[in-house]
């Protein structure tokens, strides 16, 4: 297991991610729907928080705003030390932002089926312009850290669900993003594997000093969070979690 390295990509923020008064309105005029009505969140580096809420509560909208794939209607987002949204995007290249600063873990692993495990992970640094060798080296480090090193040359379709999810986590981590957004990462997994994934996320969060936001309504893993944001009607309420089950 390699030491976390720091570099241009991995410049770790002190603050993790911070959101203040984030709003999102879909549509215009009479038919407008306010999905987010002022969300406040703050996640420190190395911390794993849960984001739970019923369907239609604005979970996905929040995730998309955090993921910089839709534009919020107002509020502020700060990633690390940089303000990325302050009543408007502050970053010109959202794609690079997604690539370099945000890691994504999805409900389904969404690995690229035609790339092997190593290249699935190494693709991000490659896209960022890193040389292939260095990218693969970094990918292998992460795969080793996630105990899927032995499947490095396998194709995604040859992996089990848990292995796929670990590779997906490795991919999310490979560019040392200050924040990882995980969208129902444990939904298809049984309880044991779900907890295993949560353990990994926690370990990786600490190891790479990454803020992790896990969107879930999976009862199996909710108890593992130390801090949980409930979202309802476009607003968040913070409460303490149980923080157990990971040992």
């Amino acid at each position, binding site marked *: 297991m390699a030491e976390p390295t720091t570099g241009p990509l991995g410049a770790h923020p002190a603050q993790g991610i911070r959101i203040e008064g984030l709003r999102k309105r879909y549509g215009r005029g009479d038919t407008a729907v306010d999905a987010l009505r002022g969300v406040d969140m703050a996640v420190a580096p190395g911390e794993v928080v849960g984001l739970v809420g019923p369907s239609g509560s604005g979970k*996905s*909208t929040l*995730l*998309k705003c955090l*993921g910089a*794939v*839709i534009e919020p209607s107002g509020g502020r987002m700060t990633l690390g030390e940089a303000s990325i949204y302050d009543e408007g995007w502050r970053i010109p290249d959202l*794609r*690079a*932002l*997604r*690539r*370099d600063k945000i890691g*994504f873990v*999805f*409900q389904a692993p*969404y690995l*690229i*089926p*035609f*790339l092997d495990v190593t*290249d699935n992970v*190494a*693709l*991000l640094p*490659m*896209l*960022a*312009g890193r040389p*292939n060798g260095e990218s693969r080296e970094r990918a292998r480090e992460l795969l080793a850290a996630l105990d899927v090193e032995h499947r490095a040359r396998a*194709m995604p379709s040859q992996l089990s669900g848990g292995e796929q999810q670990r590779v997906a986590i490795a*991919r999310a981590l490979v560019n040392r993003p200050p924040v990882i957004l995980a*969208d*129902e990462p444990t939904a298809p997994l049984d309880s044991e594997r779900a907890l295993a994934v949560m353990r990994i996320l926690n370990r990786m969060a600490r190891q790479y000093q990454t803020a992790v936001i896990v*969107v879930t309504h999976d009862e199996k893993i909710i108890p593992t969070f130390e801090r949980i944001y409930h979202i309802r009607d476009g607003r968040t309420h913070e409460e303490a979690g149980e923080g157990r089950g990971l040992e």
Partner: protein
Amino acid sequence: MISLAGRDILHGWGKFVFTGIGLGLLIGVTLSMAGIYRGMVDDAEVLLDNSGADLWAVQKDTLGPYAEPSNLADDLYRSLQTLPGVARAANVTYLTMQVRPLADAASVGDAAARERRAMVVGVVPGGFGEPGQPESLVAGRHLTRGHYEAVADISTGFRLGEQLRIRRHAYRVVGLTRRTVSSGGDPMIFIPLKDAQEAQFLKDNDAIVAQRRRSAANPAFNRPGQPQVLDAVLASQTQSNSVNAILVRLTPNADPNRVAADIRRWKHLSVYTRAEMNEILQAKLIATSARQIFMFLVILSVVSAAIVAFIIYTLTLGKIREIAVLKLIGTRNRTIAGMILQQAIGLGLIGFVVGKTVATLWAPVFPKYVLLLPGDAARGFLIVVIICVLASLVAIRAALRVDPAEAIGG
């Protein structure tokens, strides 16, 4: 950076290659169609080349001998021979007919099966490189006897030494040629002129006997007390002193148009130069069928283009989720477009190589000539690439419209 297109192709190479081969077969058909069109045009060209003539003198006011029937007295060539500028003038007859090998009782069925439609060309035997004579042989020798020998195109299926039957006489095949065809693509069989004249106007035996009876029953011919009149009439009925055209070869420095004008003016014949003859064949004789093929070629090209577009579009749609993920994790549009474009061109390349290969392989099987020109292949390649690029543009547009948000749950 790794090649996403390459990896994708490698991942599903079976599908990719088979799609490429399928596309290739389609391109092969298109190339063959172009080859058939070229073949038709080339058939007309080689017909003119093989005749070895600079001028064609035919019956006045006809487009003969290929496009219209034309009959000339067979001693007219002598008067052409003496014109200034004329190196050689030779009679020639053309007659398209069914030709079959001479059969004994045992092989009648076989002979019937090997019956071929052929253009029987009557040439003056003996001369080498005389107008009308086949220029080069692939086997055997030229005609040496004045009768009952034949030089056949190899595509007739006749073999050296074999005997074939034209009308009443058996002809021994003494030589074989290649690519000597009529403008309709029928292989040629060269026989001595006198035999050909006879064959052209000779009826079958039953018809001759019936004709004799008819003449004998006609009191004008069968006069009592003058039996010789009937004999003379019957004899005159079987005579033929006509040919279809006179092929004229000019002396090296003669001006074809001037000689043609001379013949037109003084000999009262229609005369065509090589260029005019080509025009007649291309514009009048094969025009409709060639245009037919050409139309089909155009449609086939459009269909191929549409199919290429569909294939590439479908391949891209099949990857829409991966593309969404790629976009979400920050892949540049350029990279995604490049991936689709490279795959499309790769597909086009495989298709083109397969298409050209199969077209070349199956071209000899076609009953008529299929001419695959390298220029056509190059044009075809260019068109395939352009079509692939255009088709991929549609797919790229679809891919670029994929919302990266689709990758996230909602």
